[in-house]
């Protein structure tokens, strides 16, 4: 679990965001939604490792792709690492996303929360799962610089929202989600009505008909999200109201990254209704959005 990985690439792609490609042992066992815990130097300052989500897994080449935004001294130092150097990596660590086998998968991302969702896009069987990305960012510059190097090249449906209205929907990405959920509910209702009349025929508005039906007659529809806490809370609440399964990838200040120090915890409501602590680094970072308790009032 502790490896030295060779740096293949460490390039700025725009808007203070860098792409870091590492070659080594992590790729072989990495799963969507997991992360690596990187040591950014060999001195004691900055002291702690940096947790960075895995954004790409290339098992044949033995490479993982990470994206990071320069936010502090650790990430600033990381930008100085050159191709050919090695980095100490703990990983892959954490519990990641469920990969749906069929149906529709809606991915909701806020800012750099986009990157961990890429591994999920890569992992699903796109002939059986229809994927769409809803992505919110600060402005057009951020979306174009970052998306142009990543999402827009991925041959996947997407819609964007910007806070300043300079690109896509003017407002929050959760507005797009709400519209999608309502649209989905309306289609589901129409489908059920249609089914009553012509039982067993696939609904034409779902495209190719490749989607496998659930026994109750509804295609599996799930949401996965990553972004700021406030956004994730809104996503979880919207999905909860509509009865849509949702997984959220949480972010928290971490120390050990392996579940030993209890530095990065969240609160969940378990199936029997009791409140319990979970470790974001080990039990997460991906959690069932309906379980997470967002406001921890003491």
């Amino acid at each position, binding site marked *: 679990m502790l490896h030295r990985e060779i740096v293949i690439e460490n390039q700025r792609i725009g808007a203070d965001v860098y792409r870091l490609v590492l070659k080594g042992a992590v790729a072989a066992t990495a799963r969507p939604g997991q992360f690596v815990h990187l040591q950014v130097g060999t001195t004691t300052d900055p002291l702690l490792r940096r947790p960075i989500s895995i954004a790409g897994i290339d098992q044949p080449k033995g490479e993982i792709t990470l994206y990071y935004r320069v936010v502090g001294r*650790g990430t600033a130092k990381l930008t100085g690492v050159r191709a050919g150097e090695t980095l100490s990596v703990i990983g892959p660590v954490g519990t990641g996303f469920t990969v749906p086998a069929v149906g529709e998968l809606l991915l909701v991302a806020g800012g750099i929360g986009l990157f961990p969702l890429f591994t999920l896009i890569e992992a699903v069987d796109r002939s059986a799962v229809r994927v769409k990305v809803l992505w919110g960012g600060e402005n057009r510059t951020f979306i174009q610089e970052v998306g142009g190097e990543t999402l827009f090249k991925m041959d996947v449906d997407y819609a964007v929202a910007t806070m300043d209205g300079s690109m896509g929907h003017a407002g929050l990405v959760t507005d797009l989600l709400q519209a999608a959920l309502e649209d989905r509910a309306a289609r589901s209702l129409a489908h059920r009505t249609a089914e009553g009349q012509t039982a067993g025929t696939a609904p034409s508005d779902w495209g190719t008909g490749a989607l496998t039906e659930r026994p109750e007659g509804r295609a599996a529809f799930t949401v996965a999200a990553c972004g700021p806490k406030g956004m994730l809370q809104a996503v979880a609440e919207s999905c909860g109201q509509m009865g849509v399964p949702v997984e959220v990838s949480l972010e928290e200040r971490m120390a050990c990254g392996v579940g030993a120090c209890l530095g990065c915890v969240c609160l969940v409501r378990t199936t029997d209704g009791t409140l319990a602590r979970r470790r974001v680094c080990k039990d997460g970072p991906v959690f069932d959005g309906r379980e997470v308790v967002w406001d921890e009032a003491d």
Partner: protein
Amino acid sequence: MKPIDLTTHLGRLTLKNPVMTASGTYGFGEEYAAFYDPSRLGAITVKGITPLPRRGNPVPRVAETPSGMLNAVGLENPGLEAFLATYLPRLEKLKTPIIVNISGFSLDDYALMASAMPEDSCIAAVEVNISCPNIKQGGLAFGTDPRSAEEVLRVTRKNTKLPLIAKLTPNVTDIVTLAKAVENGGADMISLINTLLGMRIDLKTRKPILGNTMGGLSGPAVLPVAVRMVYQVYKAVRVPIIGMGGISTWQDAVEFMLAGATAVSVGTANFVNPLAPLEIIEGLTEYCRQAGFAAVREIVGLAHR
């Protein structure tokens, strides 16, 4: 070439080497088993236990500092009952001496915790935590007043035959007075040091970073404070000292032992380099070999000559 003798005697407790892990940094021993076999360690100190389960403090619980970190976990733990039923059987499987760290909010709590620890298990010693800075009552309060500290040790002593370690806080004016008090109370060993109280403020939100406002400072930044306290206490007490506070390398460990520590604990360094304890065991051995010592215990307290 004769192998260097690493055997470590801490009063009645004998360990195969002097390197252990510090409470709160090593979970219940299982997380780091993915990196190496924990039985290579002298001992493992597990996360602090309280009579009842505790959910601990709200996040953020950690904040980085120059060459260090603050933590304010707030003694999150499964409680005594779950520890004995669930975690202790798993700890047995690690085949390593286990030191159980106990905390309480009253003398009765400490008595209860001490009496509940089985004397025929993997538990090699009980570390009495009278120095946690991250809980509102008890904890630090017991550790800053010599009379209370002595009383906690006395009560604990009455309730178990297991070796007792008193873990002291550095957040006092005179560490020697506290050390003498816990020795009088019946401590078989003294752990030095717990974390130093500190805080950080976020410039954007203009609020304290930690959910608990204040937290305990650990890591290389605290090392000189810890070395100084080990040095002072070594001169004043007869019981052996377990030195800790920023130990990351074998050089750090040697420095603590020269100051008077019979054994050392690795804490925050585990987070950065999970293999640090093993590298320290190797480095200590090599240091003794090159300096001509047959046993690692020969270097304890040499700075006092």
